[in-house]
């Protein structure tokens, strides 16, 4: 066991390695944002299908719960022989963890739109498609965004593990700090700390977006 004598945090290292840290943040963001966007598209389609055929909702939720239960390390490992180690592997795994949260929140959000509001829209002669986009989705937005927030924060945490697949990101900083002898605490602290900061920042930004998009909620 190597007793490290380096301090827990070296400010000077961070200042002189800003480009390396910045690159890790960008890699982390690319993986997170692409997984959440793909997850949102996939989940919207699944949710639309569930809303049209309510009997399938339970089965979709059961299947995605099952997928959600599979540990991330096992999912990366099982995908490795099929798609190799890389972006595709990480993205499939990350997307599959967003589906449960997103489908559930989209369906719940749409279903809780008051029935008389939808009836009023029908009475006004609005088409089904128009009702969905101008009545149901806007009214369901707080619940949908709540799901996106949970999914995004979850994915940011999981992306630190994808460093194991050699995909960089903040997990790579943590891994590098751990693998050198003696360990380099600053890398570990910066990698972990920035991941938390990123998660909180995304959470707040998405909350802000939701507030801006649903001005009628502020009463």
């Amino acid at each position, binding site marked *: 066991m190597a007793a490290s004598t380096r301090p827990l945090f070296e400010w000077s290292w961070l200042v002189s390695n800003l480009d390396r840290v910045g690159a890790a943040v960008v890699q982390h963001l690319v993986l997170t944002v692409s997984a959440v966007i793909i997850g949102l598209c996939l989940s919207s389609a699944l949710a639309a299908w569930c809303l049209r055929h309510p009997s399938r909702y339970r089965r979709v939720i059961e299947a995605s719960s099952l997928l959600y239960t599979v*540990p991330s*390390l096992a999912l990366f490992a099982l995908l490795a022989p099929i798609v190799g180690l890389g972006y595709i592997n990480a993205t499939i795994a990350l997307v599959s963890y967003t589906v449960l949260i997103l489908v559930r929140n989209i369906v719940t959000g749409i279903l809780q739109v008051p029935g008389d509001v939808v009836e009023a829209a029908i009475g006004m002669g609005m088409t089904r498609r128009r009702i969905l986009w101008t009545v149901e989705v806007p009214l369901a937005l707080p619940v949908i965004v709540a799901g996106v927030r949970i999914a995004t924060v*979850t994915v940011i945490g999981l992306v630190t593990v994808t460093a194991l697949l050699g995909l960089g990101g903040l*997990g790579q900083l943590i891994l590098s700090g751990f693998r050198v002898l003696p360990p380099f605490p600053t890398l570990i602290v910066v990698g972990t700390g920035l991941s938390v900061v990123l998660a909180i920042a995304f959470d707040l930004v998405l909350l802000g977006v939701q507030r801006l998009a649903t001005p009628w909620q502020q009463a």
Partner: protein
Amino acid sequence: MELLVDTWQWLAEPARWQPTVRNGIPYRIGEHLWVSTVAMLIAAMASIPAAVMLAHYRRAEAWSSSVVNLGRAIPSFGLIVMFWLLASRSEISTQFWPLVAALIALAMPPMFTNSYTAIRSVDPEVLDAARGMGMTDAGIVRHIELLLAAPIIAVGIRLAYVQVIATTAIGAIVTDGGGLGRFIVGGFAQGRGGWPMVVAGAILLALVTLLVDRTLHFLEGRLVSAAGVGNTLAATEVATGAAG
């Protein structure tokens, strides 16, 4: 296809199933469940009674819902390495406790929030009636709130347990004590030659996780029928534990 055959051969090797062989399959499954369960027991004892009491006295309302979000924001891998780092700088062994400490920290938020919400969601009229009958706070907690909240508290325990099992495997990156995660991490380290071990480890890990999840789910069903109340579906909506 060849990989599936190799994986099968890896799994079918009798020596790996000897219970006494270190690094064998039973040894790693036992280690995995041991590490996870120790962490879960400590986390449950630290979080559930506190949540029940705080919820009963209506304290820390705002804090109780944000704690689960904060827990989700902390990356489990980073937390494990941080605890490993702190242990490596002291006299503590880096094998067992750093991983367990990280698991405890990750398991507490979902159990705390679910328990808190469960107690808070008990119908106030029921509590009024109990008070009117002259029940003490201790009696209300024990005979009414805990009973009615039990199914939702149980869901929190299951979500946390599944998350802890998943995270224990990630611990294999850092220590030798990561149970089944050792096969996956060790296999990756060997390159392509290690893939049968990676796949076999992943299958075993997924099976163990699903088994624990299903077992707890079954027990929840028993609990609901024993308590005669509760809505486990609503509880799942309360806190989906972070995926590990």
